[in-house]
């Protein structure tokens, strides 16, 4: 293809070559990221002797579900999976509710002390979980919520990161859209429900993915707050399985694969929300 001048590519129109290069690079990156995960899944399907080899091969010779069945039937992984699912789902629902309403209020409702609250949120982000573990444990023991799902859900329900994300996003939504709804006669609650929430949908989706993933992977606090074995979450249980069966690589890989599976589903399901611009076209200029 003749290229008359350099202008076309200078103007930001990628040539075919450049595009192919970009895709190649992305493919390489994806391969590097996915390789260990796929290998892990592959090991989970291997027979015990094959998996026990010094370095397990890349592909199972005789694929078997033995490890998976073992992990489910012998290790109660179903219970832990259920615990994790309840905790992560409840945390996500609660923190999206809190982040959505608090972020909206901080961005668009004028109330006394709004700045102070915003500042406290930033402060909240800066506190490491480790510093909170002891006081939290004391608190929850006091109210008899140790070994209770609430112990894992409540501390993260008001998630400062989520609130700040929603606030920043909502600041980009012009207040005049909400004013228009006021003029239309909508109550403040109706405005929140019918105008603000649909406009917030993309950031709420992002926050829910973030919270779900963080909650699912949380290790330290669940380990301390859930001392009863049947209340443990997957990562904690996984660590226990690792300690007990460190020779049984296939079993460990099966448990890890099951732990990882929901994350993959969440990412695939939420992908399409990321690159959506909702406010395009509502305003002039």
């Amino acid at each position, binding site marked *: 293809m003749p290229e008359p001048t350099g202008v076309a590519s200078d103007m930001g129109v990628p040539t075919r070559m450049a595009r192919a290069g970009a895709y190649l690079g992305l493919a390489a990156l994806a391969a590097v990221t996915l390789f260990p995960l796929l290998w892990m899944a592959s090991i989970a399907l291997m027979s015990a002797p094959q998996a026990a080899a010094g370095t397990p091969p890349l592909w199972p010779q005789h694929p078997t579900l033995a490890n998976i069945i073992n992990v489910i039937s012998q290790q109660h992984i179903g219970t832990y999976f259920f615990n994790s699912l309840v905790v992560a789902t409840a945390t996500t629902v609660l923190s999206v509710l809190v982040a959505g309403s608090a972020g909206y209020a901080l961005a668009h409702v004028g109330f006394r002390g709004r700045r102070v609250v915003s500042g406290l949120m930033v402060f909240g982000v800066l506190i490491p979980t480790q510093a909170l573990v002891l006081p939290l444990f004391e608190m929850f023991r006091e109210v008899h919520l140790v070994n209770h799902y609430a112990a894992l859900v409540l501390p993260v329900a008001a998630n400062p990161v989520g609130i700040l994300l929603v606030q920043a996003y909502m600041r980009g939504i*012009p207040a*005049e*859209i909400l*004013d*228009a*709804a*006021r*003029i*239309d*006669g*909508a*109550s403040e609650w*109706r405005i929140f429900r*019918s*105008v603000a929430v*649909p*406009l917030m949908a993309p950031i709420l989706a992002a926050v829910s993915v973030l919270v779900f993933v963080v909650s699912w992977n949380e290790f330290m606090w669940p380990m301390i707050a859930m001392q009863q074995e049947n209340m443990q979450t997957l990562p904690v249980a996984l660590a226990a399985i690792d300690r007990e069966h460190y020779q049984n690589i296939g079993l460990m890989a099966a448990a890890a694969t099951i732990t990882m599976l929901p994350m993959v589903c969440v990412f695939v399901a939420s992908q399409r929300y990321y690159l959506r611009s*909702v*406010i*395009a*076209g*509502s*305003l*002039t*200029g």
Partner: protein
Amino acid sequence: MATVEIEHVDKVRPGGQAVLHDVSCAARDGELLAVVGPSGCGKSTLLRLVAGLESVTVGVIRIGGCVVNDLPPQRRDVAMVFQSHALYPHMTVYENLAFGLRVRGTARRETDRRVRQVGARLGLEAMLERYPRELSGGQRQRTALGRAMLRDAAVFLLDEPLSSLDVPLRAEMRRELAELHRSLGTTMIYVTHDQSEALSLGQRMVVLAGGRVQQIDTPVDVYRRPANRFVAGFVGWPPMNFLRAESLADMVGAPAGEAGVEYGVRPECFAAQPGGPDDVQFTGRIERIESQGGEWYLELALRCGRVLVRLRLEQALTVGEPLRLWVRRADLHTFDATTGQRVESSGR
């Protein structure tokens, strides 16, 4: 239908910035009141106060005779078209139009009928299923207007509704707005920074500058008898010429001897022939000529300063030639040079 009365309103922003100072004006029942002023003079703020989106610092606002200072926008019975249109981006045109009706619990069939009726009236039938981002500027503007029409309010507030449109479309929409006002008969407050829009649309107009009311009058009266130097220079295009009293030497027959005044003459008030015995005569040299259709735009150099002249004239003109022009005494405006206030000549 309702009157809107704004009485001695001050608005100070939370930061301490004073935006409006002692603003008083009123829109009569069914009147189209144009509010005009330069950018940043507080026009949008004034509308937002009437709508209840912001609260007054001092003063009283009455709609239909009732003090509404403490009523939220939902209960003021006003419709508003925003400067930015502010359509709901996640709703189709249909949903944008229907939202207000749905909120107020109108029956589905009735909502549908009225939305389609207004949509048809504004030429939006084919757009009803589109989202705001898929509309042209003019279509968005119509949607915003339609949303306000469906509000069925006693008062219509319009904040520069035409500012985002191109010139031909603006002229067309201006006609449509005038027609709309005639057929609805609603009280309207129309904000614009374009003085020609205010002159052509308003039954009366309020000139605002620096957060203060400069003049309230019919467009004809604002044009003929501007209350001060600011209004004189702001209303009318091309703008009025101002001459210091010292330039009296250039004028024959001007009211003599008044020190500390400034004279103003509109470019279109010059004539090539004297029209009456007490006309004021100007003599100057032609500096620049521009022909626009059948009209000439001249820059005439007087002994102290230049004036812009708009003249309808058959004869050819040449740069550098001297020219004598006449202005009717009534078209010579006089302003106090220090306060800028209009000085009524004793002759009237």
